[in-house]
């Protein structure tokens, strides 16, 4: 849906690094991006790497279904 604010396992904040990750992963190796963002534990790394951003679709659905009400 949307990136969780903190890592489920350790409690470190990950939501403030997600946008920078998305932008930089296009031109850099994702591994290096995570390292330079200071996301070093694998629990936090999976939070960012395995996130599926579905909110955009939900917003689109919500706004379109509102028109037919």
């Amino acid at each position, binding site marked *: *849906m*949307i*990136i969780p*604010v*903190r890592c489920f396992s*350790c*409690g*470190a*904040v990950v*939501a*403030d*690094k*997600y*946008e920078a990750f998305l932008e930089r992963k296009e031109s850099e190796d994702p591994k290096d991006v995570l390292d330079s963002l*200071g996301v070093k*534990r694998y629990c936090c790394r999976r939070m960012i790497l395995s996130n599926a951003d579905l*909110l*955009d679709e*939900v*917003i*689109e659905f*919500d*706004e379109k279904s*509102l028109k037919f009400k």
Partner: protein
Amino acid sequence: MGVEIIGENGGSLSFVLSDASVSLANAIRRTVIGEVPTLAIDEVEFYDNTSSLYDEIIAHRLSLVPIVTDLSLLNFKDECSCEDGCPSCEVELSLKKKGPGMVRSDDLKSSNKNFAPIPGVLLAKLGKTQEIDLKARAVLGRGCDNTRWQAAVMGYKYYPVISISDDCTVCGDCVKACPRSVLAVKADKLTVVSERDCILCRACSDVCEPGAIKVDGDEHRFIYELETTGSLKPREVLSKALDILKEKADELSSKGMI
């Protein structure tokens, strides 16, 4: 007992604790994670929320945002002299945003500039027709009650002790096996370059044919890594945790329990 700081970088701190027992080492870790007070949002009042995320989801996300905390200026709400919340035990924050766009913790306006949320935390996303309008109250709390008050992430390991015996044939297999590049061959001799990076995985001694490498952890020396969530400075977290631990120990000894 001694503490030696070996690395400090903005929100993180690493140090070596020596001549200590495992129980003390773990007590320090648990105090840092669970007892150091920080600010976090505890109550949210929604005036409007037409976003695609439910009130509860937004309230939950808000609660997990670390808020920069000056511990000298705030009391715990239940220890405060007031009846039902006052500026010395509560911080009010408000958020009002119309779409389209991202809602970040920067949009969360604090009533007191000493206590601002850390920037850049993604809270929600709004479509063209959506908006959020809310008020929130943050109070002091402890990590043992809820993760949102957790001040830092902290862990420790035994100090690695790597010994290389004369049976070493300098084949270099261990250098390749080590995931942390702790070993290197220098001037035809196997040497330990950075023992603190060793994670005690023993991949080197597993591949060593003559069994020349021995990796052990020193049970009286610990390497700690502390990373704050952003509400307090790492040194502040550590010294506060040690104060709390000492207070608790004093309380026990005053009751004759230790």
